[in-house]
């Protein structure tokens, strides 16, 4: 017992010492710092005080940014309808089938995640820009933006289908936003491109899915995002897509990070395909490979 105690104390002391050394090294390496560069080790301290009212504008670091944002909460999958089960069964997510066996359109081709997956996967940096009639969400990964109208309009009634006046589905759908209270901005979205996956794990969504996001700023430095999707065509109850946490980026700077098709193809040719899929999984390399979710 005594040895365990001594070991624990030594371990804690070691971590503290090493933390100090790393911090010192970071400090040493980072002087002088460029205002153009993202430094994940430079983090907002504490909560920074009360959140400003009705204000999300600025640059935020997400859970994959390396800047200490808390881990996100995962999805809670509701029961699927028969049609939902059929579509889900066609999708072979990379987590289970590896790059060589997946048919995830993003993992194979850098195709867009589409919304809502792009708000739960590869969440690195995010900038929010507010104008009088629109709020823009700019995502670092894939250099993409979402447009959220705040001018009082309602969601479009007809997206996709056969009517001449119907709108085309879009990767990010059609979004409107409003303040639920001084610190919670609620976004509703529909009209999603149906070929994209709702989650990295391969769950589908239809064009008529209705997604509600709640951006809640609890302090100057803390922002959370919860996402719930209702899609009766494929699910018998609302689908909780999880909760993502963000921290304020002190110098408001982000770096590039994107999926590049030519590099992806090179990677798959040289590495991903030869490595194959886990033989214990059901998808031998090459079998049924194609663009997931596409008829």
């Amino acid at each position, binding site marked *: 017992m005594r040895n365990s105690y001594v070991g624990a104390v030594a371990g804690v002391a070691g971590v503290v010492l090493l933390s100090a050394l790393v911090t010192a090294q970071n400090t040493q390496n980072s002087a002088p710092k460029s205002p153009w560069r993202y430094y994940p080790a430079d983090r907002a301290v504490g909560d920074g005080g009360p959140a400003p009212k009705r204000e999300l504008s600025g640059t935020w670091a997400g859970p994959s940014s*390396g800047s*200490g944002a808390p881990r996100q909460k995962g999805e809670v999958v509701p029961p699927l309808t028969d049609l939902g089960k059929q579509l889900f069964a066609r999708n072979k997510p990379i987590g289970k*089938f590896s*790059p060589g066996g997946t048919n995830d359109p993003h993992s194979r081709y850098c195709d867009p995640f589409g919304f809502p997956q792009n708000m739960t996967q590869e969440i690195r940096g995010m900038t929010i820009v507010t104008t009088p009639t629109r709020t823009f969400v700019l995502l670092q990964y894939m250099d993409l933006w979402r447009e959220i109208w705040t001018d009082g309009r309602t969601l479009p009634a007809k997206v996709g289908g056969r009517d001449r006046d119907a709108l085309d589905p879009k990767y990010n759908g059609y979004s409107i936003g409003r303040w639920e209270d001084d610190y919670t901005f609620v976004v509703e979205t529909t009209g999603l491109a149906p070929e994209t996956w709702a989650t990295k794990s391969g769950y589908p969504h239809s064009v008529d899915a209705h997604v509600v996001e709640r951006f809640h700023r609890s302090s100057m430095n803390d922002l959370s995002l919860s996402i719930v999707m209702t899609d009766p065509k494929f699910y018998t109850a609302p689908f909780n897509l999880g909760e993502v946490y963000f921290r304020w980026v002190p110098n408001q700077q982000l770096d590039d*990070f994107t999926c590049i098709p030519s*590099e992806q193809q090179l*990677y798959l040719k040289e590495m991903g395909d030869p490595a194959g899929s*886990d033989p214990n999984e059901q998808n031998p390399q090459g079998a049924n490979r194609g663009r997931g979710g596409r008829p």
Partner: protein
Amino acid sequence: MKTKLLVVVLLAGLGAIDRPSYAHHGAAAFDMSKPVVLKDATVTEFLWINPHPLIKADFKNDKGEVEHWTMEMGSTVSAQLIGWTRTTLAYGDVVTLYVWPAKTKLPVGRFNKVVFSDGTTMRDTQTGADDGGRADTDVRQ
């Protein structure tokens, strides 16, 4: 010596920092029980690409045959934070590479670590520990 000390300190202290990781895929396609050791392999290419940097190297086996290996690392952004750059390895470098091999038995694998001619070791961000786990204990996904 100073460089070696810095690498040791950085690796040992990784538990104290977070860094971006590319949670691109798991290791199901690889045999993580024992790394293949490519002693005195010659680097033929170091591709600093997304989603994973690739190390290509030629290795002469016991029979005198040259095996052409390719191995993937974690990600550029996470590797950068522990000292990797696009020029850490270069054509012609003679190094010893530790690789978790693919179950397909082809000469491809998941990178574990590299030992340079001066004895310096650099590891992968995600499978760099000797047991195939992360080389640290606190990395955000």
